[in-house]
């Protein structure tokens, strides 16, 4: 049996289910409204309107995509188990690793589509205001996608041992927050002496540094994401996937 064909079938099924989901429409409307609201904020910024519009828009795109991605990743496997859809999958010759890879690919495809759609809306609004393409825009979206990929795969892992979608959502959100504090944790690790410093250093290995994906933070310098950033993202995604597979391969339905 062609495994790639199987993974693709699961991925597209998961993707189209997300696209069909009413929440997707809701989020698209929300994103549109939110980006429009950023226009108002832009007016308040007078001569810095272009920067403020770009920053507000990109931040809202990231948070909207994050909210949807976490929501769907937290409930994807749980819903399939609750509705017994998973019985119809695992009673077939579908390896669990292929199913998980397909589900993850579907979630990433959904996130990519959300970013593209919202990015398009955002750029249209900027063009409407006679502003050009903000610096590093494509890199910023690419960084957001990598960040989402890391947190979505982490949410998949968490969803396999947590008791509800809400707890997965909370744990993943905490990881998102900690991931953005990684640079500050490093600062504390370098400042704090003894045990405290060592504890911070251990934390640094446990928490993915999500700040490395913020392409536009390095404004002034080259904002292109380097190979190390892509490698880190791939490694964190793969690690979460393997841990999730460890859980899933032991799981009974």
């Amino acid at each position, binding site marked *: 049996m062609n495994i790639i064909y199987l993974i693709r079938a699961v991925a597209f099924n998961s993707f189209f289910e997300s696209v069909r989901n009413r929440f997707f429409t809701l989020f698209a409307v929300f994103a549109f409204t939110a980006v429009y609201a950023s226009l108002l*904020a832009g007016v*308040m*910024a*007078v*001569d*810095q*309107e272009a*920067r*403020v519009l770009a*920053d*507000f828009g990109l*931040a809202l795109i*990231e*948070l909207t995509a994050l909210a949807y991605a976490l929501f769907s990743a937290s409930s994807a496997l749980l819903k399939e188990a609750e509705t017994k859809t998973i019985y119809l999958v695992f009673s077939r010759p579908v390896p*669990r690793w292929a199913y998980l890879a397909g589900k993850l690919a579907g979630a990433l495809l959904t996130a990519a589509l959300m970013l593209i759609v919202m990015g398009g809306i955002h750029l249209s609004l900027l063009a409407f205001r006679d502003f050009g393409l903000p610096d590093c825009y494509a890199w910023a979206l690419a960084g957001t996608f990598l*960040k989402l990929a890391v947190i979505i795969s982490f949410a998949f892992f968490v969803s396999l041992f947590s008791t509800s979608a809400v707890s997965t959502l909370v744990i993943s959100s905490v990881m998102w*927050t900690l*991931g*953005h*504090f990684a*640079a*500050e944790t*490093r*600062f504390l690790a370098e*400042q704090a002496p003894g045990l405290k410093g060592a504890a911070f250093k251990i934390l*640094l*290995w446990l928490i*993915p*540094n*999500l*700040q*490395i994906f*913020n392409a*536009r*933070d*390095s*404004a*002034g*310098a080259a904002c292109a994401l380097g190979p*190390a*950033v892509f*490698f*880190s*993202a*791939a*490694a*964190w995604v*793969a*690690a*979460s*996937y*393997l*841990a999730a*597979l*460890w859980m899933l*391969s*032991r799981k009974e339905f």
Partner: protein
Amino acid sequence: MRGRGLHLLAAAALTWGAGGFAARNFRSPFPPPSEMRVPAAGATGDMLALALGARRLFSDVWFIRLMQYYGTVEVHDDKEPQARGAAEPAGHEGHHHEHGEFGTGNYPEFFSRARHVLEVDHSFVAAGLYGAASLAFNMQRAGEAEELLRYGLRYSPREWKYLSVLAAIGYSKADNPAAVAQAIAPLLKDPDCPVMLKQQAAFLNKKQGNYALAAAIYADILATSHDEAYVNNARKQLELLSRHEIPPK
């Protein structure tokens, strides 16, 4: 299937570590949190800025708050709020925002608020220039302006725009308006150049009789700025220059 559990777990741990290893050299470009002198009312915002990885966005918010603060009724030394008004300092022939002048007077929190914008995102050069130019040329607080620029230079040491304004402030203190105009000149076509610096340059050129240059700068303000007060003033000055009704120096 159940037997391969530990292998998977070990592979997951190793892969996770590899991700951290690849990212180990990353250093945040931002000033460390210990440098944030957060006004109490803004502590929550700063926490969110860090937690969401959205320092750029929150520095924008702080910048908008700085402009709103600068656009409100000033606070005088006697702590009584008073509408900005009558006196027009040398070099300022118009009004700031909807008020009648260009932000003269006492805004005691202006420096700390302007610095905080850079503490949150040091790369917001336009905010640094805006703050320094307002302090130096509108409020005559050259010392604070220099301190703000020096803070900006600490994290953006190769930022020539900061150096230009720093030089302009030095010439201004030495009462050398021609040199001030010259120092500001390279900044004028830069998108980060705050409008009050453009206006300062236009005024100094006009004062020295360089009417064509002054008119070109006013025309640029008219074309690029969204600040109504500066735009209205530029329009007025262009009209005067075109009719040769040049106000006395």
